[in-house]
């Protein structure tokens, strides 16, 4: 058993003249939550569907749990699919079957006898907290409840791998959070590996260990989440990250000017990953009392065990020391940015 549960090697797929995937290579390790982010049309859906063979590929290799999908016939693919769960943006529950029957379906498809199935279904319903909804039809459930049923169904075959296709995109923020929490819990309790695709950085930030950024069918950036968030290398990643960067409070934003004000102050923001950046900036600022440093806004989170976020300082504006400070920061590769200037 290798360390990687999913391995894509130079995978390409085109629909006519439209290239959906272009030479995509990635590895998902056992037990991790791997996120794939990109804008709509970036090829995310195609990518995740190659992993369970719903989408065939034109070139390259897809290896799941040590079996090369290209070498499998339909029956072999079905055996792999029974060991790979999948959840969907629109839940895809059978509307004419009850919650119980929906969760039971994978076991029925696998030919498990009826009396063995029931016990497993009740366990799954307990796991997602829907035991009391067993006899209800999906139409009577909320979005979050439907996705819980979807998760229970996906887990029925005791999969080692769970694929999530924008599973929280149709849910409100609060429900999204509860579903993400459930997914995170599952990796801990059941040791399931999760591959998820999303267009929301907040999802990546909330639960993923590693992330790949997909653009026009190509992976443009890939690595541990804290690293990609802390040092985004491409413009697309930076743009996607802006959605999770907390904006300045409105009161500060309103007073901000583009030009320095005599005797005024300036706002500088540190974008950082890793405690080093913050410590380094604090050291720089503390060594010079002339700055009259003040912290006006800060939001630092821990992502994958690493502090990540932004701190905005207000400093007394002095032209040449400020230039020196920025130069020093750049030498130490600290993301330091002047946001603007305010009255003193």
């Amino acid at each position, binding site marked *: 058993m290798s360390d990687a549960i999913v391995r894509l090697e130079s995978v390409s797929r085109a629909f006519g003249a439209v290239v959906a995937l272009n030479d995509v290579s990635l590895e998902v390790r056992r037990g991790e939550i791997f996120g794939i982010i990109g804008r709509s049309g970036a090829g995310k859906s195609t990518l995740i569907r190659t992993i*369970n063979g*719903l989408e065939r590929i034109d070139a390259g290799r897809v290896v799941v749990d040590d079996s090369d999908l290209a070498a499998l016939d339909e029956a072999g*693919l*079905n*055996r*792999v*699919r*029974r060991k*790979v769960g*999948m959840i*969907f943006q*629109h839940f*895809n*529950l*059978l*509307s*004419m*079957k009850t919650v119980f029957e929906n969760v039971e*379906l*994978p076991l*029925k*498809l*696998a030919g498990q006898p009826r009396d063995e199935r029931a016990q497993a279904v009740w366990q799954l319903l307990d796991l997602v907290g829907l035991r009391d909804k067993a006899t209800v*039809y*999906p*139409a009577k459930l909320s979005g979050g409840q439907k996705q819980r049923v979807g998760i229970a*169904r996906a887990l029925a*075959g005791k999969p080692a791998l769970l*694929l999530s296709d924008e599973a929280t995109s149709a849910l409100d923020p609060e429900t999204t959070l509860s579903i993400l929490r459930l997914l995170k819990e599952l990796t801990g309790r059941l040791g399931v590996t999760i591959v998820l695709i999303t267009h929301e950085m907040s999802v990546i930030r909330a639960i993923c260990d590693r992330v790949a950024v997909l653009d026009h069918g190509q992976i443009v950036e890939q690595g541990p989440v804290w690293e990609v968030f802390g040092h985004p290398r491409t413009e697309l990643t930076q743009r996607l990250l802006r959605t999770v960067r907390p904006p300045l409070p409105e009161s500060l934003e309103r007073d901000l000017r583009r030009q320095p004000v005599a005797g005024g102050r300036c706002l500088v923001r540190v974008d950082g990953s890793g405690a080093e950046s913050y410590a380094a900036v604090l050291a720089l600022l503390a060594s010079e009392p002339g700055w009259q440093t003040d912290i006006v806004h800060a939001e630092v989170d821990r992502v994958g065990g690493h502090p990540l976020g932004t701190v905005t300082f207000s400093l007394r504006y002095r032209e040449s020391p400020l230039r020196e400070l920025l130069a020093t920061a750049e030498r130490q590769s600290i993301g330091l940015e002047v946001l603007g200037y305010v009255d003193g």
Partner: protein
Amino acid sequence: MWTDDIPLFATALGETGIMVGVSGLLSLALGLPLGVLLVITHDDGIWRRPVFNRVLGTIINAFRSTPFIILLVALIPFTRLIVGTTIGTTAAIVPLAIAATPYYARVAEMSLREVDRGLLEALRALGATRWQIVREALLPEALPGLLSGFTVTLVTLIGASAMAGAVGAGGLGDLAIRYGYQRFETDIMVGVIVVLIVIVSAVQVGGDRLARRLNRRL
């Protein structure tokens, strides 16, 4: 007295019932698999067979475009081959079933096509075979529509069975023609129309109710 005509009506009603009932069940048993085939062999189906799909569609269209009264006569040799006779209620069942089967196949196709593609994909992701996808997702999800479609088919069959009087099949249509039209017994004609209206309404209302009761999406 109008009550004298009751046995006449009872016999005719029974004949219509048998013709419609048997040919209805036959068209369901034959038309539903054809409808499923039309959907799954389509270009975006789960068992793509474009050539087969086109051939099947063409055959179905050919039968659908032939007026029933012509089909009735054209099928006489075939009918003799199957049931050994070309006249009477039993003989009428053959052309009725053959006319209703492609009709129901198209009606079923429409309902089956409306099943959310996401559901079929979910079943594929669960490792379902094609047959399992048809049995567990396609048919159950389309059930209310399939039932409504069957109701419409029955109503059409009731109308068509009146024409089968032309081959001496008996039934309500035959009664209306022979007594009502040829013997100028207008009250029998009116009676037949009233009975037909009642039956058709009952079938339609009953079918709609059942379809609604079975629909879990509401």
